[in-house]
């Protein structure tokens, strides 16, 4: 089969567009796993350098799972998860209308949620956050992780269940 020139990963434009679309997700993906910003940044570098080195062998439609795979394998066996720090968006809503105990309650809930997220098994946390923060569909996460959609649904289900149990203190 003859490949046209511009669907080749070695083409600068194609390569750049893959980078634009996926670098942030690779970064978040590794961050959710290990809670280390530096390692997540390095994983992005490593994954895309490897993609460049292998650009002639990787079909553009495979480039996505290629970079996730490289990033994921980079730390296999190597590091333990640290604390995953996430930020809550500051709502511009007029909070002065809210009762102080409501705000306090909100704050408490966020703290509980943080702790519960922290205690989730790595796979569940990664899947849950990729879906909630990055808005990734189950099918996309399944492709990234190289497992079935059902496996991802199971992780999502367990993640929510565990979070609730932790928060309600069961």
């Amino acid at each position, binding site marked *: 089969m003859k490949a046209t020139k511009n669907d080749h990963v*070695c083409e600068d434009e194609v390569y*750049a567009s893959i*980078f*634009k679309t996926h*670098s*942030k997700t690779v*970064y*978040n993906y590794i*961050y*959710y796993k290990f809670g280390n*910003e530096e390692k*997540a*940044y390095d994983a*992005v*570098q490593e994954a*895309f*350098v490897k993609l*460049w*080195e*292998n*650009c*002639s*062998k990787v079909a553009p439609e495979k480039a996505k799972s290629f970079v996730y795979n490289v990033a994921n394998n980079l730390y*296999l*066996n190597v590091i*333990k998860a640290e604390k995953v*720090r*996430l*930020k*809550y*968006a500051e*709502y511009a809503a007029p909070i002065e209308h809210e009762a102080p105990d409501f705000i306090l309650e909100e704050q408490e*809930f*966020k703290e509980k*949620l943080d702790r519960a997220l922290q*205690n989730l*098994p790595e*796979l569940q946390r990664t899947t849950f*956050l990729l879906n*909630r*923060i*990055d808005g990734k569909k*189950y099918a996309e996460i399944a492709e990234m*992780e*190289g*497992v*079935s959609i*059902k*496996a*991802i*649904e*199971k992780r*999502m*289900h367990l993640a*929510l*269940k565990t*979070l*609730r149990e932790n*928060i*309600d203190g069961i």
Partner: protein
Amino acid sequence: MQENYLAKWLNNELSEEEVIKFKATKEYATYQKIVETTKGLSAPKFDMDKAWNDLKKAKTVAVPEEGSKVISLNPLKKYLRIAAVVALMVSVALFYNNSLDERISTQYAERAEVVLPDASEVVLNAESKIRYSKEKWAEKRSLSLSGEAYFKVAKGKRFSVNTPDGTVAVLGTQFNVESRKGYFEVSCYEGLVSVTYRDKEIKLPAGNSFLVIDGEITPTQHPSTTEPAWLSNESTFKSIPLRFVFEEFQRQYNVKVSTKNIDESQLFSGSFSNQDIELALQSISVPSQIKFKFEGNKVLFYAKAP
């Protein structure tokens, strides 16, 4: 409710009836709140421009392996070329042969998850090793294991796990194998597993375990969970001699365990956390009525001399 209904709910895939039923549960409020609150979450900032610039620097060093064409100014004579190709093929073949097997291992206090070429999943517990051949995987799904691992096998041909103690074979299922010094345990969580131990084949249906301690087949209770406890960061034991409990503790926390005045063959039933060492120490020592000292990376379990 259907399987994984929480995941379906998030994806708006529940039927109206199911939604009504779900909303009526007392847990619903918290679920709703979790989903609402996570809407405001964000990951740490990622500086894409910086990453792109750093990457450009790295790219100039790295070269695509079959990228641009090179025109030789001094082409080799034909026979020399052929000789070079042959030499290269021989060395590639040799190298290939030597690097055929994939090896994945974990150290103390580590865990790893591996996806095999057919999308079967393996989770390795601490201080465990697997070896398999990627190239031959399509013909023969076979790997060797030392240590402990949980398998989720994709449906297909026979899948076998070889350990120094025995061989475990399945078609497609979920099971856990632990093969340590003096200890061999297989638990089946789904489907049917066949265990060959000392040339005898034992069929293990879902919800059953097979345990050998120091060469002796030991009757054991059936797993009551749907997954081994260590996947949720707990180590569980049912009537297991203390020495194996100590060994697992060492592996999970990367500490050195020593004992004094303790009968290590005493049976232990219970579990310990793989995340909180203080709690784990309590969980082992209190039911066994022993004491412990914990300093640096050393733990001493002891009992008062009788």
